[in-house]
């Protein structure tokens, strides 16, 4: 089975990713793109209906992990070491979130990833992420 298909199946088998309705829109070659539908259960501010930062974080973290797994030089799985998310604006209530992540550098032990989250206004990102992930080498 090819790696891209494997990564997709792996992530789709994650209970929490399924619970949040996360799905892939693209994956391959150290990059991944995902989508998460708007869900009132994920709201952080009931007055405005804006999604909670934690839900945005979960989608960015998952997309980053998928990008690492989809990197051609990464032999196995991955885990997050550290991830910073900058919240630039509130996500518009009622709109799905879309993310794309790029694994831009990979050493024997560490993968470096950045990602962006957008709603329907893709010119103005909702949040950006920068993170480091483990590279699980062949034992």
């Amino acid at each position: 089975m090819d790696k891209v298909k494997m990564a997709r199946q792996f992530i789709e088998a994650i209970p929490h990713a399924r619970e949040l309705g996360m799905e892939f829109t693209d994956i391959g070659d150290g990059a991944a793109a995902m989508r998460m539908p708007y869900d009132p259960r994920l709201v952080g501010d009931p007055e405005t209906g804006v999604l909670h930062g934690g839900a945005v974080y979960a989608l960015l973290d998952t997309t980053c992990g998928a990008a690492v797994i989809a990197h051609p030089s990464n032999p196995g799985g991955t885990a997050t070491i550290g991830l910073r998310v900058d919240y630039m604006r509130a996500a518009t209530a009622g709109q799905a979130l879309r993310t794309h992540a790029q694994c831009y550098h990979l050493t024997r032990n560490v993968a470096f990833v950045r990602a962006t989250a957008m709603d329907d206004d893709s010119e103005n990102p909702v949040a950006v992420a920068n993170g480091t992930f483990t590279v699980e080498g062949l034992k």
Partner: protein
Amino acid sequence: MSRRRPEPVQVVKQRRDAALQALVQGVPYVQFLGITFDRRGDELTAVLPFHERLIGNPMLPAIHGGVTAALLEVTAVIGLAWSVLWDEIEAGAIDPEQLIAGRLPRLPKTIDFTVDYLRSGLPRDAYARAQVNRSGRRYASVHVEAWQDNRARAFAQATGHFLMPTPRG
């Protein structure tokens, strides 16, 4: 000169707990994850009971990193909002009855949030506590730690910056 007689302990406790519940229950995402808050004086501990749907790695199994981050962020936001609220309630600037009736204060907004994953989250309950390192008029800086069985062995920690809400006019 006579000191005012202190209120009965149950009255004070009930009012504080009701104010905290109103604050926590106002956020749908906190309910979705199933996070509750345990209060001892002004100190809060977030409790995240384990559930299958929180799993991120079914092979280990381990809690999803996004859930860990969400627990930390929720704890930071509620902890920060509570510390400000506590002072205002104690000073008599806010009537807790108003909070309980649903007139909730605006919550701080996350500017950035950085999580350190120290070890994988095991399939069991998790706890978190926030420490407000600075709380200014506009900005705040909060550190938060999460642990499971052993308080001294945190499985994740985070630091975030927050934009304080402008008071309702």
